[in-house]
């Protein structure tokens, strides 16, 4: 097994390549997922599923409290 990880003496070049690939691809994916989740939640907070525009903002116009 340790022979496998030694990669014929090139371990110091091969594994960092794969490690960087992992860090970059997982990192970019995680940032995108977090941004998407935040954007979805921000819309949900204002009521509705984010698709129907006839609910929410317009309603406050007739709100006697405002």
């Amino acid at each position, binding site marked *: 097994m340790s022979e496998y990880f030694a*990669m*014929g*003496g*090139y371990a110091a*070049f*091969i594994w*960092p*390549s*794969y490690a*960087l*690939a992992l860090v*970059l*691809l997982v*990192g*970019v*994916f995680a940032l*995108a*997922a977090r*941004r*998407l989740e*935040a*954007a*979805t939640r*921000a*819309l949900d907070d*204002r009521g509705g599923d*984010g698709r129907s525009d006839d609910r*929410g*903002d317009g309603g*406050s*116009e007739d709100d006697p409290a*405002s």
Partner: protein
Amino acid sequence: MSGSAFHRFANPRRFLRLADALMPWLAGLTALGFAVGLYLALWASPPDYQQGETVRIMYVHVPAAWIAMFAYCWVGAASAAALIWRHPLADVAAEAASPVGAAFTLLALVSGSLWGRPMWGAYWVWDARLTSFLLLLFLYLGHWALLNAFDDPQRGRRSAAILAVVGLINVPIIKFSVDWWNTLHQPASVMKMGGPSIDPSMLHPLLAMALACQLYFFLVTFMRMKAMLLEARRQTRLYRAPRVPAAARRTAEGGRA
């Protein structure tokens, strides 16, 4: 793409529906692609007779470079569409894909450098392929910088789009640099006239990783596009919301005067 098809998917609402339908499939296929690709790249493929085990770096390096260039073409084409038709979805497509392409560019440069050290004896040489690829990274960075350089986002998007379209000239330069100049970088062995000239045992991990990276690009780009569209929708609502208190305040002030 025909004009009608372009306009069909250029509708943000329709795009969101399409993206919602596609994203679970893209996620599953990306995971499967990387599982198969990594198994072939790190376990089931033999060492090269010349490069030894370092050939395994190629299964990261070559797909990363391909997708880096594909992503740039995507950004350039979307930017051209944004400049010509002024469709907001085109701006979103360019801005969403750009950092993904930049990540693949960085990966291609660093993994190539890690391969170059044992095989060429140098991490870096200023040959045509490497230099034009470094320029690709700078184009991505410039695109990102311009997007964020102006108080008026619309001006930033226009400037970034112009840079992206002008930078498209670099894509064929990268592709043909190994033929036009005498470079240390080896010429194409997969995408060339007469078909690939590498052994199937190495072509298969390469193609599996390339497919996984391509699916990953679409998945993350669509996720980012969706996030940006939802953010824009929220902005529109926030913009409309203050009208009510403002109108109410004017009425109140008018009443007092």
